[in-house]
């Protein structure tokens, strides 16, 4: 189970290969990679700035991972969230889960990214030529997270 919050980009192949070697019982790996979308809908947006609450963000991600482990049988979990300045097409987040069977891997990966969206203290700002705008929590993200509360 490992968490990284970093400025640097990551290599999904390296990460998946590490998960593969976590145990001889790994029968399934599911990964999710979030990217920065095209920002051309507003020509004033220059890039995205991501900030987090050091200390709390690690704790919050750990809590989400522990909750996932209590719901599904998992062999390894890797979460990476990038911070700093990012541009379209950049990788921003990765969640990868290894399990014996695919069902647990699929469900837990979705659970972790859904909870990360609403329960981990990260903020995105669209940096514009003058100032910028902080992105707010999307209603659809809250709804996705609440579905898991009904399932528990």
């Amino acid at each position, binding site marked *: 189970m490992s968490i990284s919050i970093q400025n640097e980009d990551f290599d999904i192949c390296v990460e998946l290969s590490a998960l593969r070697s976590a145990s001889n019982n790994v029968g399934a790996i599911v990964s999710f990679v*979030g990217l920065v979308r095209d920002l051309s809908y507003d020509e004033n947006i220059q890039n995205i700035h*991501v*900030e*987090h*609450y050091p*200390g*709390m963000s690690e*704790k919050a991600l750990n809590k989400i991972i522990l909750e996932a482990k209590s719901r599904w049988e998992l062999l390894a979990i890797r979460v990476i*969230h990038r911070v700093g300045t990012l541009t379209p097409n950049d990788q*921003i*987040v990765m969640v990868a889960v290894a399990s014996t069977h695919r069902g647990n891997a699929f469900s837990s990966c979705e659970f972790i*990214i859904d909870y*990360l*969206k*609403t*329960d*981990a*203290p*990260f*903020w*995105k*700002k669209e940096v514009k030529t003058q100032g*910028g705008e*902080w*992105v*707010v*929590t*999307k209603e659809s993200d809250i709804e996705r997270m609440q579905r898991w509360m009904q399932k528990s």
Partner: protein
Amino acid sequence: MQIELLYFGRPSDNLNIMRETVSPPAGIVTIGDLLNWLHLRGEIWVLELTESKIRCALNQEFASWNSKIKDKDEIALFSPISGG
């Protein structure tokens, strides 16, 4: 009582502050009280730190406006989160 206050997201930007140590007067019991006390600083503080527009954390756990505070607590005030 000394409180470490941290700001993230929009309020941090608009109030131009990331962190400060404050000594609230007697009678400040909850995070809500602390917010009202910060509002005395002026209109922009009222505007940026409206309960409906921000969330808070107490010692690095999400908290509510009724959460009680004590000496040496770390309190964070921030706009809705938007990671991932």
